[in-house]
């Protein structure tokens, strides 16, 4: 069966510090991978998605970047965090076919102080 792992679960970082959040998927090959951000009490905002190694599409211009160094690894990064980067970050995967739902990770609560 497929599983998705996301870590860390919580993170408190000072303004201006770098960020690296990691997401890995097991039990499948060639998945689509997604990074979402969710502000408190709000909906899901798609940040990045990837259909293959080294292929990243950005949905929102911002202080963040994503990379996919391996087929089942998706990394969300920032060189210098802003207060506005605080939020709940979710990684998700899906099969590379139409009409297949996403499976989400457990999320990372990031607080920038």
């Amino acid at each position, binding site marked *: 069966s497929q599983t998705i792992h996301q870590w860390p679960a919580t993170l408190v970082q000072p303004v201006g510090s770098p960020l690296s959040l990691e997401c890995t998927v097991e039990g499948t090959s060639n998945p*689509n991978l997604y990074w979402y951000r969710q502000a408190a009490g*709000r*909906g899901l905002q798609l940040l990045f998605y990837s259909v293959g190694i080294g292929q990243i599409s950005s949905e929102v211009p911002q202080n963040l970047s994503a990379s996919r160094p391996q087929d089942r690894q998706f990394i969300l990064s920032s060189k210098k965090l802003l207060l506005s980067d605080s939020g709940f970050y*979710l990684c998700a995967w899906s099969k590379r076919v*139409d*009409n297949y739902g996403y499976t989400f990770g457990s999320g990372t609560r990031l607080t920038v102080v």
Partner: protein
Amino acid sequence: GESVGLHLPTLSVQEGDNSIINCAYSNSASDYFIWYKQESGKGPQFIIDIRSNMDKRQGQRVTVLLNKTVKHLSLQIAATQPGDSAVYFCAENEDNAGNMLTFGGGTRLMVKP
């Protein structure tokens, strides 16, 4: 599109009553729909899905209804329990669009004991 900037509407129901959560979609080409449940501090979890060739699909205590004429989707929860308290998101996928889900803004369900 995603309603990420709006506060979540709230539905408050009495334990044991039935709940109905509604979702309107705008893309008439969407042919696959999903409901997700997100508990506090966790990632969204798949509840039930429906394809556009169906009007109704039932799961355990949940029913999804699809009205393509008015582009409306609803999730019915029978005998609502305290454990049903969560945020519920609908999502739609357009056929041949590379499996990119579009999420609704979400509805918070609060179950009163």
